[in-house]
C-alpha cells in the first residue's frame, strides 16, 4: 500500500480473493470498480439464481453450492476469482481456502474493517434492499471477534481497508506475476538432469554443449566461475545439484555463478531442499548422500554457506517458460499444476506423485503421472534415475543416473536432442538396480505405453485438428460404428498409421449414352485452374495399404510391434487382407525383396515404407459380395430371361398381340444380363499361388521421417514404376497419362485412352492434379482425385439394365457434394495420421485420426458414388 490518498493493492495474477466485511460495507461496489464482471462471483446473485430472490436466506445452502461450483470451475481454468460474500465467519473462509488449495491457487483476502456506524448509515441509504440494523450489528460484532486470528487462516496475502476514505483511496489492483511464470524466457535451453555433485561430468557436458567455463576469482555475485554459453542459449538445471557425488560444493558454485549471471535457470530438487533445511539449522538425518555433501562443505566460509542457503531458498518449485510451451520441474508436474502455487505443487515438484506405499527396494511407490499426461507443454524432469532418457506423452525424464555410474544427460530445447556424457565412475550404489526391468525390453517407453489405447481418447464426439483442413468434427453417431469395426475387425492399431479416403466420381456426363465421361473429370480441375493432371488407369481390385519393413527388428523399432512379422496388408477399413498367415508372410516377403532389390530402402534412407495400393483380383477379398450379390443376380436372371423370351415368342407365334416394345425390352434385358456377367467376371480369377495376385502401388505414403504429399503424382507413378520392375510377376506399375488442361489435343488423347481401356472392360481411370495436394482459392484444397468409371463397369454398380434410356435419365440426377466433402475430410485425416506417425507422436494421436476416417465413412452417402 502506498499513501493514504492513493492506494494500490497488490495481488497475485492468479488467486482467489475473499472480500471480507459486513453487509453494506461496500464490497460489491468495490469489486465492480476494480475487477472485471466475470471475475466477481456474488453470493447474493447465486441466491437469486436458485430462488429468484437475492435476499432469500432459506436458499443460502443451495446458493453456496452454486457459488463454490462456479469458483471451482474458474480456478480449474486458471482464472482469478473474487468472492463477493460477507465471509465474516471463519468456517466460511476455511471452505474457500480449501477450494483454492484444491486447485493450487493462492487464497487472498481484502478486509473491509469499517465501523458499524458506517455500515448502518450505508444500509439506510440503500435503495435495492435494506437489512435489519440488528443483522449488521451482529455481523459487525462477529467480525471483530473472528478477525483477530485471520493471519493464521492460510490467506497468503491480506489487505485491510479500515475506513471509507481508504476504500475510496484504492485506485487500482496490481496483479503480480507468479514466481514460476517465466513465459517470456524463450530459450533456447540446454536442460540438464540430476548432477548430484558430479562436477567433472557437468563441465564435460557443458563443453560438449558449446559452453566455455572459466575459473575466475570469486566475488559477491560470482562464486568462482564465468560461463559463456553458445549464442543465445541458457542452461536449465532440473534440480538435485548436490549429494552422493564427489564435488557437490563445486557444482553449487558453478550453478550459483550461472544463475546469478543469468546464464542458467534452476529449479530445486529434494536433495537441494534437504541441504537447505540442514543449513537453516533444522534437524535433518545425514543420509542418502547428504552426509558426503556436509563433509565436503566442511571448511567453507560462513559467507558461502549463507549464500548457498539464500540461493536454495529462492529457487521456485517449477518454471513455466517459452510462452507456456516448456515446463521444468525436478520430479515432473501434472498439467493441472502447471503455473500454480501450493504446498501440494511444491511437494509434487520435489518428490513426484507417490501413493504412500513402499516397494521391495524400500523406495516410495510412484504413480506414473507421465502416463496420464495429455498436456500441450513439454515437461522435462529428473529425480528418478532411468537407463535411457525416453519420451512419454511429451514428457521426458533426463536423470540418467550419472552418480550411479550412468550418464549425465542434457536435452537441447527446442531441438529435442539429447546430449550425454558417461559417468567417470560409479560414485554411489542405487537402492534399486538401474537396469531394473529394462534389460530385455525392446520397445521404448511410449511404444510400451501405447500397447493399450484408452477408449475415452478415441470415442464420442471429437474434434481432430489437422494441418491440411483445420478442425474436423467427428460426430458421436459416427464414432459409434467406427468403434465397433475397429474393435471387432481391425488389426493391431500400431499398424494402422493410415486409412485411405473415399473418392468421388466426376460430375454426370451430358452425353446421352454415358453416365460418367472423362471430359467432366478433366473439366473439374481445368475449371479450378489446374494446369496439369495425371490420369491413372483404375485397377479393379481392392484397396490395400501395405506396410513393409526390412525385417522384424525394424518393425519393432519403428512401429513398436513384436512377433507380427515384417509388415501387414490391410483393407480400407483396417481389416487384415489375408486370413492365411502363410500367404501373407510370403506376399510381404516378396514385396520386401523387390524393394531391397531395387535399392528402395537405401534411396529413401528408411527401414520401412507405407504404400497405398490396389490388390487384385477383386474376387480375392470381395468373394462374399461377388457370390451373394453379383453372381447371384446373374444366376437368377440368366435362369429366367431366356424362358421369358421363349414364352413371349410362342405367344406371339400363336397370334397373341405381344406389345413390340415389351418384347424388345426383354430381349435387351437378356443381352444386358450377359454383358453384366462379363463385366464382373473380368475382375475375377482364382488365386492358387502368389503369382495369381497383382499388387499395384500408386502412392508412396511415408518412410522414416517423411510423408510424400509434397511430391507430384507423376513422381509417385515414376518412382513406383522403378521399383516394381524388380518383381513383375507380383507387382505392377500403373499406366498413366499426363494431361495439359489447356491443350485440347492432350485432353482428347486422355479421353481416347479412357474409351479404349473401358472398351476392353477396364474399370476406368482416376484423374488427379499434378500436385498431390492442390490448394483451392479458399485456403483449402481440391479433390485429391476424381474417378471416372467405364460404361460396362457401371453395370455392376447401377445394375445390369442401368443404360436403358429411361433408367439412365433418372440415374443422372445424383449429388456429389457430400461425397466430395467426405473425400476432403478423410484425405486430411489420413495425411494427418501419417504426419503424426513420422513425428513419433503417441499412438492415440495417430489412432484418433484413422479412427476419424473410419467414422466419416459411416456417414450416409449414396454407396454407388
Amino acid at each position: 500500500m502506498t499513501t493514504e490518498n492513493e492506494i494500490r493493492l497488490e495481488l497475485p495474477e492468479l488467486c482467489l480473493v475473499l472480500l471480507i466485511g459486513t453487509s453494506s460495507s461496500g464490497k460489491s461496489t468495490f469489486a465492480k470498480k476494480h475487477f472485471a464482471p466475470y471475475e466477481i462471483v456474488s453470493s447474493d446473485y447465486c441466491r437469486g439464481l436458485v430462488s429468484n430472490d437475492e435476499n432469500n436466506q432459506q436458499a443460502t445452502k443451495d446458493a453456496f453450492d452454486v457459488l463454490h461450483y462456479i469458483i471451482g470451475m474458474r480456478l480449474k481454468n486458471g482464472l482469478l476469482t473474487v468472492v463477493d460474500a460477507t465471509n465474516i465467519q471463519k468456517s466460511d473462509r476455511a471452505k474457500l481456502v480449501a477450494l483454492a488449495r484444491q486447485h493450487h491457487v493462492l487464497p487472498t483476502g481484502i478486509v473491509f474493517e469499517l465501523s458499524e456506524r458506517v455500515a448502518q448509515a450505508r444500509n439506510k441509504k440503500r435503495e435495492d434492499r435494506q437489512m435489519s440494523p440488528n443483522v449488521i450489528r451482529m455481523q459487525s460484532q462477529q467480525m471483530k471477534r473472528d478477525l483477530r486470528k485471520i493471519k493464521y487462516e492460510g490467506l497468503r496475502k491480506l489487505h485491510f481497508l479500515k475506513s471509507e476514505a481508504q476504500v475510496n483511496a484504492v485506485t487500482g489492483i496490481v496483479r503480480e506475476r507468479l514466481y514460476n511464470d517465466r513465459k517470456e524466457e524463450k530459450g533456447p535451453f540446454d536442460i540438464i538432469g540430476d548432477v548430484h555433485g558430479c562436477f567433472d561430468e557437468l563441465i564435460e557436458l557443458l563443453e560438449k554443449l558449446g559452453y566455455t567455463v572459466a575459473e575466475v576469482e570469486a566475488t559477491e555475485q560470482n562464486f568462482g566461475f564465468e560461463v559463456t554459453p553458445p549464442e543465445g542459449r541458457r542452461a536449465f538445471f532440473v534440480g538435485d545439484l548436490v549429494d552422493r557425488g564427489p564435488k557437490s560444493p563445486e557444482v553449487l558454485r558453478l550453478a550459483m555463478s550461472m544463475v546469478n549471471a543469468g546464464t542458467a535457470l534452476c529449479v530445486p530438487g529434494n536433495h537441494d531442499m534437504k541441504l537447505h533445511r540442514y543449513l537453516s539449522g533444522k534437524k535433518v538425518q545425514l543420509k542418502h548422500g547428504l552426509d558426503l555433501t556436509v563433509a565436503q562443505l566442511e571448511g567453507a566460509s560462513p559467507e558461502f554457506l549463507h549464500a548457498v542457503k539464500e540461493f536454495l531458498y529462492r529457487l521456485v518449485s517449477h518454471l513455466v517458460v517459452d510462452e507456456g510451451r516448456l515446463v521444468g520441474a525436478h520430479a515432473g508436474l501434472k498439467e493441472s499444476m502447471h503455473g500454480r502455487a501450493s504446498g501440494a505443487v511444491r511437494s509434487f515438484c520435489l518428490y513426484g506423485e507417490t501413493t504412500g506405499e513402499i516397494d521391495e527396494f524400500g523406495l516410495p511407490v510412484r504413480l506414473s503421472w507421465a502416463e496420464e499426461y495429455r498436456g500441450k507443454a513439454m515437461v522435462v524432469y529428473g529425480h528418478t534415475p532411468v537407463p535411457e532418457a525416453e519420451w512419454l506423452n511429451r514428457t521426458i525424464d533426463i536423470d540418467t543416473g550419472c552418480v550411479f555410474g550412468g550418464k549425465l544427460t542434457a536435452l537441447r530445447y527446442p531441438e529435442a536432442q539429447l546430449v550425454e556424457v558417461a559417468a567417470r565412475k560409479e560414485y554411489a550404489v542405487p537402492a534399486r538396480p538401474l537396469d531394473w526391468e529394462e534389460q530385455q525390453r525392446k520397445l521404448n517407453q511410449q511404444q510400451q505405453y501405447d500397447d493399450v489405447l484408452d477408449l475415452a481418447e478415441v470415442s464420442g464426439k471429437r474434434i481432430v485438428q489437422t494441418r491440411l483442413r483445420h478442425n474436423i468434427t467427428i460426430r458421436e453417431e459416427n464414432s459409434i460404428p467406427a468403434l465397433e469395426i475397429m474393435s471387432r475387425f481391425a488389426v493391431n492399431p500400431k499398424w494402422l498409421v493410415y486409412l485411405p479416403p473415399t473418392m468421388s466420381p466426376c460430375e454426370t456426363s451430358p452425353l446421352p449414352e454415358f453416365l460418367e465421361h472423362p471430359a467432366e473429370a478433366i473439366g473439374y480441375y481445368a475449371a479450378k485452374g489446374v494446369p496439369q493432371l495425371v490420369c491413372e488407369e483404375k485397377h479393379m481390385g481392392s484397396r490395400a495399404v501395405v506396410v513393409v519393413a526390412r525385417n522384424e527388428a525394424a518393425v519393432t523399432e519403428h512401429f513398436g510391434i513384436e512377433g507380427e512379422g515384417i509388415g501387414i496388408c490391410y483393407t480400407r477399413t483396417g481389416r487384415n487382407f489375408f486370413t492365411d498367415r502363410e500367404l501373407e508372410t510370403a506376399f510381404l516377403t516378396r514385396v520386401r525383396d523387390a524393394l531391397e532389390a531395387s535399392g528402395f530402402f537405401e534411396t529413401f534412407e528408411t527401414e520401412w515404407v507405407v504404400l497405398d495400393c490396389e490388390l487384385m483380383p477383386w474376387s480375392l477379398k470381395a468373394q462374399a459380395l461377388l457370390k451373394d450379390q453379383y453372381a447371384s443376380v446373374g444366376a437368377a436372371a440368366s435362369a429366367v430371361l431366356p424362358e421369358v423370351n421363349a414364352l413371349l415368342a410362342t405367344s406371339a407365334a400363336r397370334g397373341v398381340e405381344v406389345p413390340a416394345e415389351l418384347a424388345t425390352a426383354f430381349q435387351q434385358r437378356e443381352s444386358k444380363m450377359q454383358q453384366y456377367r462379363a463385366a464382373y467376371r473380368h475382375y475375377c480369377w482364382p488365386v492358387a499361388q502368389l503369382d495369381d495376385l497383382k499388387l499395384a502401388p500408386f502412392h508412396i505414403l511415408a518412410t522414416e521421417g517423411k510423408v510424400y504429399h509434397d511430391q507430384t503424382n507423376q513422381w509417385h507413378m515414376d518412382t513406383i514404376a522403378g521399383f516394381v520392375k524388380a518383381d513383375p510377376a507380383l507387382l505392377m506399375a500403373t499406366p498413366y497419362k499426363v494431361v495439359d488442361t489447356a491443350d485440347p489435343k492432350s485432353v482428347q488423347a486422355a479421353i481416347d485412352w479412357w474409351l479404349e481401356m473401358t472398351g476392353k472392360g477396364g474399370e476406368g481411370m482416376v484423374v488427379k492434379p499434378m500436385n498431390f495436394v492442390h490448394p483451392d482459392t479458399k485456403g483449402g484444397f481440391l479433390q485429391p482425385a476424381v474417378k471416372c468409371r467405364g460404361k460396362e463397369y457401371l453395370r455392376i454398380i447401377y445394375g445390369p439394365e442401368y443404360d436403358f434410356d429411361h433408367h439412365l435419365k433418372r440415374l443422372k440426377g445424383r449429388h456429389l457434394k457430400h461425397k466430395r466433402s467426405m473425400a476432403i475430410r478423410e484425405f486430411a485425416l489420413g495425411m494427418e495420421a501419417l504426419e503424426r506417425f513420422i513425428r513419433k507422436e503417441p499412438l492415440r494421436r495417430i489412432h484418433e485420426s484413422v479412427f476419424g476416417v473410419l467414422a466419416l465413412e459411416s456417414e450416409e452417402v449414396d454407396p454407388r458414388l
Partner: protein
Amino acid sequence: MLLTLQTTHRPATDLGYLLHKHPGRFQSVDLSHGKAHIFYPEASESRCKVALLLEIDPIALVRNTRNQKAVNFSLGQYVNDRPYVASSFMSVALSKAFNTAMNAKCKDKPALVAQALPFEVELHSLPAPKGGEVLIRKLFEPLGYTVELERQPLDAQFETWGMSKYFRLVLRHTLPLHLLLTHLYVLIPVLDNDKHYYVSKDEIDKLIERGGTWLQEHPEREQITQRYLLHLKSLTRNAMDRMLEQEADAENDGPEEPEEMKARKVSLHQQRLKQAVKALKASGASRVLDLGCGEGKLLRLLLRERQFREICGMDASFKTLQNARKRLYMDEFSPRQNERLKLIHGALTYRDKRLEGYDAAAIIEVIEHLDENRLQAFSRVVFEFARPETVVLTTPNAEYNVRFETLPAGAFRHPDHRFEWTRQEFETWARAIGDKFGYRPEFSPVGEEDPEVGGPSQMAVFTRNDVLNQESEIDPDDN
C-alpha cells in the same frame, strides 16, 4: 419374374374363365414398382398355359426405399435380384392379377370353382434360404403336391463358387384353383428372406384369412407364420396366440409339459450363464461387470440376485445394446433399478476407466471373437487396468466339436470365431495371464461333460492374489 400355370383339364381353356383372363389377349396390371403381364403361350383343348410375367423397375425400387432406415443390403442396391426372382412381389402380383379366382369366384362357370383340377405350376428363380430344398418340400408336400426341384449354379465359369440359392420349382397337384393360388400366395414369400415391405398387424390378419384351415393343419404352420412375418417375434406371438385361440376352441385339452422336461430343455447357453452367476455369487461380489453383454441374457439373471447392487453391461455393438435395453424393458425401470443397471458402449481392446472399481467381471463366450494377437491388449484391459477381484471367463472347448455331428471337421462353431481352444490351450493361456497379472485361475467344464472330450464349453474363474492372501490371513486354518 415368371410364373406359369397349366392344366390338362378338358377343356383346358376353362382356365381362362377361372382366372377371368382371356387366353387370346395380352393383359397388364400395375404394381407399386412396375407391372404384371398376363398372357397364354398355349391355349388348346388339351392344354392351357398361362404366364404371369413381372416387370419390376429396379431404380424405382431403390429410390422408394431409400428413406427407410433399415434397408437391407439387397434392397439398397441397384444390383438387385428382385426383378428376376419369384418373391413377395410375385405374391402381390398373383393377388392383383387373379384376385377373383383367389377369392373362389367364377361368374361364368361357378361349378368349376370347387372342382379339383390337374395343375402344373412352374416357378423360375425361386430364392430359398439355407436348407432351401428341404424347406420347399416341407412346405408343399404336406399339401399334396409333387415337387420337382432344380438348383441353379452361381456362375458356370467359376465352378468353385458352387450353387446359387435359386431353384426352378415345378409343382403338380390336382386341387381347386383358388386353393392352389392361396398356397402360392402365402408360401412364396415364406421362402423369401428379402421381403420388400414391412410386417404389420394387418399382415397377421391377411395371413390367417388367406391361410384358413389348411394353414392351421399344416405341420410347418409355426415356421410358415414365423417366416412370413419376418421373424418379428412380438407380431408372431400375436398371430400364434390367435391361432392357438382358434385351436383351443376346437380342442380344449392340451397336456401340460411336466416341469422336469422343461428343466432339461435349458440350453447350453443357459447352463453357461447359470454357472457364471453361481461363480459370481460365490466370489462375494456386489458390483459386477458383464463384458460383451450382448442382448442381456446374463444381465437379466444378475438383476434377479439381490447380492449384485451395481451391474454394468458393456458391448461393442450399439445396436445390440439397444436391443438389450428393449429386452430388459429398461425404459420402464424404477429409479432404483436404473441405479443398479447401466449399459455402456465400449470395446475390450481399449482401456476404459468406466470399468475400474468393480468387484467382478463376467466375460462369457467373448474372447474367441477377438483376433488372437489382440488378446494381449484384452488381457491388459481386463486384468491390469479394470482389475476386478474376480473374473469369470468362458470360451468354447474345441475338443468337443467332434460331438457336433453337423459341424465339419476343423470348422469353428460360429463364422465370427477367430479361434477355438482345447482345454489344454485354454489352461495354458489362463495360467500365463494369472502369472503375469497376479491372479489364480480355476477351471471347470460347462455343459454336460463328455468323458473323452470334456464339456462343450469351458470356464476359468480368476481370483486376484491379494484377495486370496487376505482370505488366508482371515482364516489361516482353512485349507
